[in-house]
C-alpha cells in the first residue's frame, strides 16, 4: 500500500507555524539565568514536533535544521546548558529561519538559504563549544561492529528465555516466533523446567524458555531486530549455524556470545527510506483554513438537528394542511426563523478567532524594536481572548503593527528622559481588546510623552494641511491632524517608524473595514489609540430605504436619526447647496435620487424623509422617499463579478430574492461633494 504523504503537508504547515509562534512567545518569556523548566520544555516540544513531522513527511532541510535546534534545547532542558541572552537571540533567529522555510513550503517558493546556513552554523558553534556527551554516544554508535570473517551462516540457533515479567509489557513470544518464521524455517524446543506447580503458577508470568533452530540466509541483525524490544526482558543467545562448525561446539562459547550481543544490543534501526519531497503541484493553492473548536462544530451539529426536525414538522404540516392548523404553521415558521438565526450566528462564530492570533507577534516585535532603540518597555496585553472575524483580523494586523511601532518610537521616551521626567525608566505599552456593542475595540496605550499639540499644529501648518494654528482649537481635532495625508511629526526618519507609510494609511485601512480610530493623549502622561472595528464583515444591520421603486440599504451603525423635514429649517447656501438646521448644527442635504439618478416619488422635501447619517466624521442628511424595515443583511461583493461602485459598499439579497445595494456613507459624501464641486465649477465657467 502506498500512502501519499503530501496530503498531510497542510496540517504540518499549520501546526508548525503554530508551534513556532509558541516557541517565539515562550523564548521571549524566558528569564536569562533562571529559566522555567516548563517553558523550556514547551519550546523543546514545539521544535521536537517540527523535527518529527518534517522528517516523516520528507522535508529534510527543515528536519536537519531543527535537529541542531532540538539538540541545543535538549541540553537546556537537561540543565546542561545555561540560558543566556545570546542563546535566546540565536534561538529566536532560528525561529525566524524555520518560519521562512515553512512559509516557502506553503508557497512552494524559496527561502534565504544563506541566512539559514549561517544561523545553523551559529547554533552548531554553540553546540561545539560545550560538546556534550550526546555527541560521543553518536560516534560510538557509528563504530562498525567487527567484521565476521567466518563462513556465511546457514542459520541461527537462538536460546530465548523470557524474564517472568516480559508478558506485562505486551510482548508475546508466539508473535515473535511467527516473525522468525518469516525469515526461514523453524524448529522450536520449549523448556518447561521452570514451570512451577499449579498452585504457584501466576498467570501473568512467563515461565517457558525456548531453543529455536532457524534455517535462513537472514543476517544476525535481522534476527536480533525481532527481539530488540525485549532484549532487557529476556536472556538471549544467538549463535550462527555454519556449514563446518557443529552447533554443539558453539554452545560452549555461548557466554562469550552473550557478551557480544549485549555490546551491540541497541541496534540502529534500518535507515529510513527518505521519500522525495512531497510532489510539488504546479499551482500554489491558497488553501487557508481555520481551526475550529469542536464545541463550535458540535453546537452547529445540534442546530442542524433542530433544523431538520423543524423542516420535517413543516413538510408534514404542509401535506395535510387546512386552516385549523394555521396556528401550528405560524409556530413552525417562528421556530424555523429561530433555527435559521441561531444557525447564522453559529456559522459566523466559526470565522471568529481570538485576537491573540494578532497580538501574538507583538512580544517579539517589541523585544526587537526596543533593543534596536535602546529603550526599555514592558508590554502588557489583555483581552487576548476577544474574538473577531478572521478576515478583519488579517486586515488589522498591519495597522496595529504601525501603531505599536509609533508608540515605541514617538511615544515612549528613552530611559534617561524618563528618569529625568521622574518616571519609571521602563515604559509600559498596553494592548487591550474588548467587545462593545457589535464592535471590537482595540486600544494601544503607552505611558510616554503624549502628543505635543503645539508641534502637531506647527507641523500641520508647515505641511500645508491647515493655514494657521488658530484654525483648530479642540484637542480631538488637533489629534485628527495626525491622520491627514502628508503629515509626519518624526523629525528624523527613523528605521523604526519612518517607513514612508503615514498614519493616513492606517486610518484608511481601518475605515475600509468599516471601523474608526480615536486618540486620547495627555502631554507627559501618554497616549491611547482606540480602534473600533465591526466583529464581522459578512453581516450588517441595515435600514432599508426606498427611493422611487428602488430599495437601498443604509448601515444602521451610521444612522444618527431619521426625521420629517420642515421647510423652515432648509436653507440654500450660495443658491444651490441645501443645508438643514438640525438643532444647533447645519448639515448638508443629499438628495439621493440626484446622486443615483433614480426616479423619486416626489422631489418635495416635505413629502419624504431625511435620514441623518455620519460618515468620515461628517454628518449629512440623505433625502429618501420612505423608510422600510430594518434587517440583518448578508454582505455580498459587487466587485467579484463587477467592479467597485462609488457610494456603494456592496450588495445583498433581500427576502424576495432581489438584489439591494448597500450604501457606503463615506463614499456617498465624497460623491456628493465632487458633484457639488462640478456644479459650482460649471457655474463659474
Amino acid at each position: 500500500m502506498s500512502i501519499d504523504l503530501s496530503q498531510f503537508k497542510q496540517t504540518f504547515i499549520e501546526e508548525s507555524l503554530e508551534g513556532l509562534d509558541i516557541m517565539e512567545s515562550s523564548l521571549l518569556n524566558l528569564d536569562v539565568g533562571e529559566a522555567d523548566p516548563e517553558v523550556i520544555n514547551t519550546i523543546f516540544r514545539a521544535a521536537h514536533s517540527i523535527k518529527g513531522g518534517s522528517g516523516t513527511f520528507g522535508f529534510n532541510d527543515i528536519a536537519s535544521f531543527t535537529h541542531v535546534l532540538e539538540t541545543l534545547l535538549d541540553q537546556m532542558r537537561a540543565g546542561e546548558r545555561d540560558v543566556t541572552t545570546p542563546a535566546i537571540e540565536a534561538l529566536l533567529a532560528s525561529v525566524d529561519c524555520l518560519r521562512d522555510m515553512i512559509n516557502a513550503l506553503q508557497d512552494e517558493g524559496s527561502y534565504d538559504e544563506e541566512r539559514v546556513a549561517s544561523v545553523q552554523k551559529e547554533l552548531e558553534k554553540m553546540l561545539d563549544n560545550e560538546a556534550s556527551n550526546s555527541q560521543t554516544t553518536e560516534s560510538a554508535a557509528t563504530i562498525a561492529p567487527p567484521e565476521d570473517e567466518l563462513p556465511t551462516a546457514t542459520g541461527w540457533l537462538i536460546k530465548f528465555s523470557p524474564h517472568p515479567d516480559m508478558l506485562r509489557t505486551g510482548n508475546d513470544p508466539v508473535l515473535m516466533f511467527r516473525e522468525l518464521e518469516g525469515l526461514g524455517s523453524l524448529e522450536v524446543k520449549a523448556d518447561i523446567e521452570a514451570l512451577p506447580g499449579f498452585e504457584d503458577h501466576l498467570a501473568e508470568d512467563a515461565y517457558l524458555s525456548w531453543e529455536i533452530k532457524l534455517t535462513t540466509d537472514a543476517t544476525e541483525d535481522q534476527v536480533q531486530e525481532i527481539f530488540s524490544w525485549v532484549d532487557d526482558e529476556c536472556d538471549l543467545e544467538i549463535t550462527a549455524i555454519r556449514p563446518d562448525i557443529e552447533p554443539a561446539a558453539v554452545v560452549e562459547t555461548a557466554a562469550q556470545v552473550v557478551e557480544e550481543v549485549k555490546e551491540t544490543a541497541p541496534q540502529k534501526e534500518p535507515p529510513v527510506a527518505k521519500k522525495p519531497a512531497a510532489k510539488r503541484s504546479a499551482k500554489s493553492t491558497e488553501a487557508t483554513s481555520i481551526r475550529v473548536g469542536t464545541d463550535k462544530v458540535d453546537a452547529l451539529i445540534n442546530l442542524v438537528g433542530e433544523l431538520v426536525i423543524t423542516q420535517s414538522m413543516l413538510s408534514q404540516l404542509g401535506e395535510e394542511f387546512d386552516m385549523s392548523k394555521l396556528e401550528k404553521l405560524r409556530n413552525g415558521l417562528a421556530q424555523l426563523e429561530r433555527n435559521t438565526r441561531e444557525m447564522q450566528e453559529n456559522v459566523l462564530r466559526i470565522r471568529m478567532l481570538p485576537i491573540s492570533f494578532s497580538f501574538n507577534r507583538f512580544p517579539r516585535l517589541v523585544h526587537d524594536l526596543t533593543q534596536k532603540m535602546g529603550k526599555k518597555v514592558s508590554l502588557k496585553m489583555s483581552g487576548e481572548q476577544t474574538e473577531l472575524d478572521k478576515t478583519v483580523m488579517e486586515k488589522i494586523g498591519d495597522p496595529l503593527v504601525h501603531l505599536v511601532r509609533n508608540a515605541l518610537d514617538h511615544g515612549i521616551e528613552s530611559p534617561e528622559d524618563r528618569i529625568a521626567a521622574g518616571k519609571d525608566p521602563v515604559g509600559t505599552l498596553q494592548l487591550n481588546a474588548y467587545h462593545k456593542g457589535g464592535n471590537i475595540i482595540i486600544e494601544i496605550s503607552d505611558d510616554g510623552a503624549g502628543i505635543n499639540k503645539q508641534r502637531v499644529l506647527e507641523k500641520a501648518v508647515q505641511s500645508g494641511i491647515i493655514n494657521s494654528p488658530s484654525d483648530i482649537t479642540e484637542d480631538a481635532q488637533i489629534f485628527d491632524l495626525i491622520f491627514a495625508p502628508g503629515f509626519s511629526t518624526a523629525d528624523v526618519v527613523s528605521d523604526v517608524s519612518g517607513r514612508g507609510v503615514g498614519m493616513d494609511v492606517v486610518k484608511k485601512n481601518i475605515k475600509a473595514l468599516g471601523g474608526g480610530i480615536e486618540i486620547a493623549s495627555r502631554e507627559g502622561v501618554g497616549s491611547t489609540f482606540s480602534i473600533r472595528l465591526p466583529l464581522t464583515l459578512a453581516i450588517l444591520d441595515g435600514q432599508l430605504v426606498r427611493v422611487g421603486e428602488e430599495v437601498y440599504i443604509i448601515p444602521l451603525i451610521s444612522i444618527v436619526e431619521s426625521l420629517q423635514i420642515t421647510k423652515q429649517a432648509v436653507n440654500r447656501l450660495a443658491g444651490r447647496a441645501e443645508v438643514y438646521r438640525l438643532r444647533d448644527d447645519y448639515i448638508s442635504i443629499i438628495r439621493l435620487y440626484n446622486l443615483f439618478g433614480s426616479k423619486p416619488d416626489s422631489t418635495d422635501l416635505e413629502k419624504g424623509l431625511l435620514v441623518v447619517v455620519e460618515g468620515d466624521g461628517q454628518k449629512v442628511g440623505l433625502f429618501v422617499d420612505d423608510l422600510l424595515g430594518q434587517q440583518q443583511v448578508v454582505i455580498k461583493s459587487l466587485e467579484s463579478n463587477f467592479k467597485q461602485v462609488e457610494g456603494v459598499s456592496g450588495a445583498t439579497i433581500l427576502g424576495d430574492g432581489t438584489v439591494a445595494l448597500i450604501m457606503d456613507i463615506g463614499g456617498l459624501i465624497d460623491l456628493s461633494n465632487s458633484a457639488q464641486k462640478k456644479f459650482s465649477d460649471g457655474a463659474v465657467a
Partner: protein
Amino acid sequence: MDTAQLLDSDSIIADGDGHEQYLTFMLAGEEYGVDILRVQEIKGWDSATRIPNTPDYVQGVINLRGTIVPIIDLRMRFNLEKLEYGPTTVVVVLKVSSTSKNRTMGIVVDGVSDVYSISADELKSAPEFGDEINAEFVKGLATIDEKMVIMLDIDKLLNSRELNVLDSVASEK
C-alpha cells in the same frame, strides 16, 4: 424560457480536429456566437437591480443562486435600437476571464439560436464594423448555411474599461 437551463460543459467534447463549438444568439436580426465552453447557463429575463452611475448598457445586477451577477444589454452595448424585453428575451450567463480574475456576467440577447461546430480556419477575420461594434470584440466571421455569424471574443467585450475600472464612470460623465 422560465426555468434556468444548465449547460453541462463537460458533456460537450471538442471533436479533436480543431473544431470549436459556438452557441449563437440573435440580436437585431444578426446572428452572433460565443464559445460554448464559456456559457454557464441560459435563463429567462427577470428584473435586475439598477446600479447608479454606470453606463446605460449595464442593466444592473441579479441574484444568481446567491452571487451578484451584472447583466449587460448587448443591444445597448452595440448601440442598436432598444427592444422591449419579451418572453423570448434571454440572459446568457458567461464565464469571463481576465488577467486578474474570473468573473460571471450575463448578456441580454433577443433569443438563443443554435450550436455550431466551427474549425479555426473557417473563421475569417473581421473587416472594420464602423462605430456600432468595435472590431476588437470580434473573434472572426463564419459562414454557416450562407448566413454570416459574428463570433465574439467575450473576454475583450466584457472586460472593457467601463466594466472594470472604478473611476471610468466619473471621468466619462
